[in-house]
Each structure stands twice: as C-alpha cells, then as structure tokens.
C-alpha cells in the first residue's frame, strides 16, 4: 500500500512547504510568547539566585527592596551579623537609573555592593570576562546586555567608572541589566542631587538663622556636611550558616531587630505575585489567543486542502477505498502540516525571535514537548471538520447524472 498522504504532499510540495512555513511562523510566535513568560519568571528567579542571599532584610513593613523602596541604616548589618545562624551579612543598594557612556545612555539597575571580596552576598557570582572590583571606588562590573565593553568609561551621576568586568544574565526583575559599583559610590549616586539643587539647599540652610549663627562659625558647615551624606542602604543580604533553618533565623531577626525579613520563597512569591503578575496575565492571554488562532488557521487550511480533493475522494470511495484510508489521508496530511509547522516554529523561535526580542526569552524543552503535543492534537481536531465533509461525499457523484 502506498501512502496517499505522502504522494499528495509530494505532488504539491511547494504549496505544502509554503503553507507549513507560514503556519510555522505563527507557531513560532506562540512558542516565543511562552518563552517570554518563562523569561519574565526567570528574570525574577535569576535576580534572587544571583544575589546569593538566603534572607533579605528590609525596611519594616515594606515589600522591598525590589517591589517597593526600602531604606535601612547602613550600620544595621553589624547587628544582624551577630544574630545566631547568620554566616554573612552585607549591605546592598539598588537604584534603576540612566548610565551614560559616550554619547548614549542605557537604563540599568545600579547595584551597590559592599566592599569585600568575591562570594559576598550581592556580588556577581560569575563573570564572563574581566575581573571583579578590587578598588573601593570608581570601578564597575556591568552586564553585557548594557552593551558596555571592558575598559569603557561610564558615567553614573557625576562620577566616572571604569568597566573592569562583564556578567551575563544579571538583570533586575523588570529585565533591566545590572551595573555593580562599590556601595559608597552607589549611596552617593542614589542620594546626591545635581549641583543646582545642592546650591539651593545650601542657600536655604544658610538663610535659616537656626543654622547660621555667627557666634558658632562651624555650625553651618557641619549642617551642610550632614545634609550631603547618605547613611541608608536598601537592604541587607544575609547568608545563613549551613544546617540552620532560614525561617528560624528570619524570625529571630524580625523579633529582635524589628525589621522585615523575607526568605527566598517569600521573595519569589513577591516578585512573581506582585511584580510580574500583570505582565504574566497579559502574556497568558496572548498565548491563549494565539493558540486559538493557530487552531482555526490549521482547521481552515486542512479544510481547504480537503475540499480541493473532493472529486478524488468521491472516486476513491467509488473504486472501493475504505473510509479508514480516506480519513488517514486527511489526518496524516494535517499532522504532517502540523509537524512541519512545529519544526519551522521551533527553529524560528530559537534562532530568530529569542535573540532579537528585547527581553529574555527562555525556551524550555518541556514547553516544546507540550507545544508539539498541542500542535498535533489541534491538527487532529481541526481535520475532523474536513473529515466530516469527506465522509459526507456521495460516491455516486463520480458517476455523472
């Protein structure tokens, strides 16, 4: 027995391949949508993983430091370090702002990391090039998504930094690439305003008679100096001792330090539940719509292909072809179209969509397998409409009236 479906495809191969590729682009976009959703969730997870922390200590009653702004004193870490179960504690600041390099500026999350050594919470856990920061000021490690290269001079607020190392996949939950700079520089950048604002503030202080007393000549200088320092950080990242329970350590910090503490799983819930919830819903909706559209298009294509063969189907029935064989012809073509579409779609999603899309697109093998299954099922269901039409064909029509 020959394969009728195979012969029919070979006979109109160009049309079939063309249709398959068109369908493949649609499937590719659908797969990419799923990948974008996974990428969103992964952005959040990667942010938590890369910080190297087991606990996040933030301002009381906030859901910071990523979902809400949080400020705690920069000496709070000393008290936290002395709590039982805490192995390491380090300050960290996060501030999303424009980083300038030459003529262009890039939106990045500037992360202030505590002066220490590699392996400290908050430090980039792995590099793709260069080295980690060694000087206490004016050095930066940037993510390659910023487009910066080793040796570039970048400007953050009024200071210039030399890029000494590059990382990959260090992004904020919103997908902005991270730039790591020493904590003290970051505190200044987060706080310090432009020169005009500083001058105005000095002027205001100087005209305030409470601060500008001639009998106390150094008072004004001291007040102005205190206004230009920033003793706050956004969070303290904590690593707990091996074998200790994160929840217990978190509970004791909450109780004795009266700060809000989140464990890894709580932070994940916050990020996925609060930060990306809206985007996730939007993408989920698109995914459903695209799947429905794809199903409709496959059904339409298969129906049209079948209708074009209606006379042949009548003849086949007349000369004694079993219904089973005719159903097989239609369904095999439908599935072949689906498989071709899926292969083209997967290739398009991986090689074209993922690299050019501005956000991270994570195509997981499981999604591809599920997608393949869904495509095959959709093809089979869509071909039912065509099969019903084929079954209704009366072989007697082949014999002209």
């Amino acid at each position, binding site marked *: 027995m020959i394969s009728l479906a195979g*012969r029919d495809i070979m006979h109109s191969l160009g049309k079939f391949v063309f249709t398959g590729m068109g369908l493949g682009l649609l499937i590719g976009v659908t797969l990419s949508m799923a990948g974008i959703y996974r990428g969103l969730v992964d952005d959040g997870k990667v942010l938590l993983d890369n910080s190297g922390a087991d606990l996040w200590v933030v301002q009381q009653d906030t859901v910071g430091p990523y979902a809400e702004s949080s400020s705690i004193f920069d000496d709070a870490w000393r008290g936290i370090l002395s709590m039982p179960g805490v192995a390491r504690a380090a300050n960290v600041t996060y501030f999303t702002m424009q980083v300038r390099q030459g003529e262009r500026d890039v939106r990045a999350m500037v992360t202030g990391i505590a002066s220490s050594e590699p392996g400290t919470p908050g430090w980039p856990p792995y590099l793709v090039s260069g080295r980690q920061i060694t000087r206490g000021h004016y050095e930066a490690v940037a993510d390659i998504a910023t487009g910066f290269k080793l040796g570039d001079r970048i400007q953050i607020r009024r200071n210039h930094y030399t890029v000494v190392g590059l990382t990959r996949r260090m992004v904020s939950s919103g997908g902005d690439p991270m730039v790591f700079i020493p904590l003290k520089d970051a505190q200044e950048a987060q706080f310090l305003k432009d020169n005009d604002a500083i001058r105005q503030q000095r002027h205001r202080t100087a005209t305030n008679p409470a601060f500008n007393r001639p009998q106390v000549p150094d008072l004004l200088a001291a007040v102005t100096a205190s206004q230009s320092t920033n003793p706050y950080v956004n969070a303290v990242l904590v690593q707990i001792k091996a074998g200790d329970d994160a929840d217990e350590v978190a509970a004791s910090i909450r109780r004795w330090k009266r700060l809000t503490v989140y464990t890894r799983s709580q932070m994940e819930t916050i990020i996925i539940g609060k930060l990306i919830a809206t985007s996730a819903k939007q993408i989920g909706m698109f995914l459903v719509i695209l799947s429905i559209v794809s199903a409709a298009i496959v059904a339409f294509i298969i129906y049209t292909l079948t209708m074009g063969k209606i006379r*042949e189907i009548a003849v086949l029935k*007349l000369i004694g072809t079993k219904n089973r064989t005719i159903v097989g012809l239609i369904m095999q073509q439908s599935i072949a179209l689906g498989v071709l579409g899926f292969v083209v779609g997967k290739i398009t999603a991986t090689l074209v969509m993922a690299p050019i899309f501005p956000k991270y697109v994570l195509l997981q093998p499981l999604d591809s397998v599920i997608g393949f299954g869904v495509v095959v099922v959709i093809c089979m269901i869509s071909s039912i409409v065509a099969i019903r039409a084929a079954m209704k064909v009366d072989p007697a029509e082949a*014999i002209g009236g």
Partner: protein
Amino acid sequence: MTGKGIRIEGLKKRYGSGDTAVDALMGVDMQVAPGEVVGLVGPSGSGKTTLLKCLGAVIEPTAGRMILGDEIIYDNGWKVSDLRALRRDKIGFIFQAPYLIPFLDVTDNVALLPMLAGRPNAEARSRAIELFKSLDVEHRARAMPSQLSGGEQQRVAIARGLVNRPPVILADEPTAPLDSERALAVIRILNTMAQKFETAIIVVTHDEKIIPTFKRIYHIRDGVTYEEAGEGRAIE
C-alpha cells in the same frame, strides 16, 4: 448462467415517498454473460444512470434481485455486508471522464486497486503495466495524469477498471469525448479484455458511432428495459 456474469430480475427504484415520489426503475430485467459486451441505450431521464448506480451497488434499489455470478448480492435488501469491498473486488468502473488521481502517477493510479485489495505493491504495479501493454500506453507508465493526452488518460482509466479482474465492468459513456477512431478503439479494447478475462461488460452510451458494434442492446425507457439484437458490426 453460472460462474461469472450478471443478472438482474425485476429491479425497481423509487426516489422519495408519498406525493413527490419518482419511480426511476419499474421492473428491470437484464442479464449479461461473461465475455459479453452489451450496450445500454436510452434517453436522459430514462433511468439508465439510476440503473448503473444500482448495478454498481452505489445506491440501494427498492425491490428486485441482483445476482453476480453465483452470489445473490441483492434480494429486496442487500445480501452483502461490505459494499465497498464488493465494488473494489467485483465491479469495475469506467467513467465518462478518466477521473485519475492527480497526485499519483498513472501506474499507481491503476495499481491502487489491487493494493487496496491487499495485494503487494510490486505485484499490483506489474499487473498495471501488463494492462498498459495491452492498451498501448506502456510508454507513459511513469508519467503523471496531467501529462497524458485525453485518449491516453481514458486508456489508463480502462486499465483501472480491469486491473482487479472483476467479473463485471460498468462503463458510463466511455467514448463520449472521443472521435470515431478512438471510440472504436475503446470498444475494441473492451471486447478484447472481455474475452480475455471473461468479464461481463455493460456500456451505457448514446454514441451512434459505437452502437452498431454491440451484438445485444438493452433499451431503457421509462424505467423498463427492452432487449434488442444489435448489429454486432466488427471493428477493424
């Protein structure tokens, strides 16, 4: 009659019911012996298409008997369960138009029937090619139907009708689009094949060019057949 051949007794077919009922066949009697090629002639609306459809087990008659060889296939109800197998194995069709499957080459178009009957592909194809030799289209064996001329396609269609060596072949206006030379050639082939394979062939036609060649002709008028001896003119 024993062995092959076809015999019909009192076949009736009524379409619809009640006031709008149409009696297409009102008691048709026919018999064709193996090796015989008979003509079935009648004006349009006389019921010949209906009769052909009943003979081909494509529609169900309302009453009567149909006997194919030794087997009663219809006796006021189908006596055979798988009509499609019946059509595949016992009845060959030759249509007005070739109706070849465009996406199979001509060999596979013909070999499809034995393959559907379960014969291995190589055997099916060799049978087809053998028939092509007899029908003088062997040189076109690997071509696609669209590449053949009208006459060549018709010959392939005839081969398809014959390939399963059915006991009965129904030909519906097989010469309508052909000129007289080609038409007579078709009839010649049919006669040859009929004798060679002991097939009973019924040719529905109103083509004046070939009617004289039949030895026996059934006229059908108003749903009833009348037998008539034909001229039986020889074909050069």
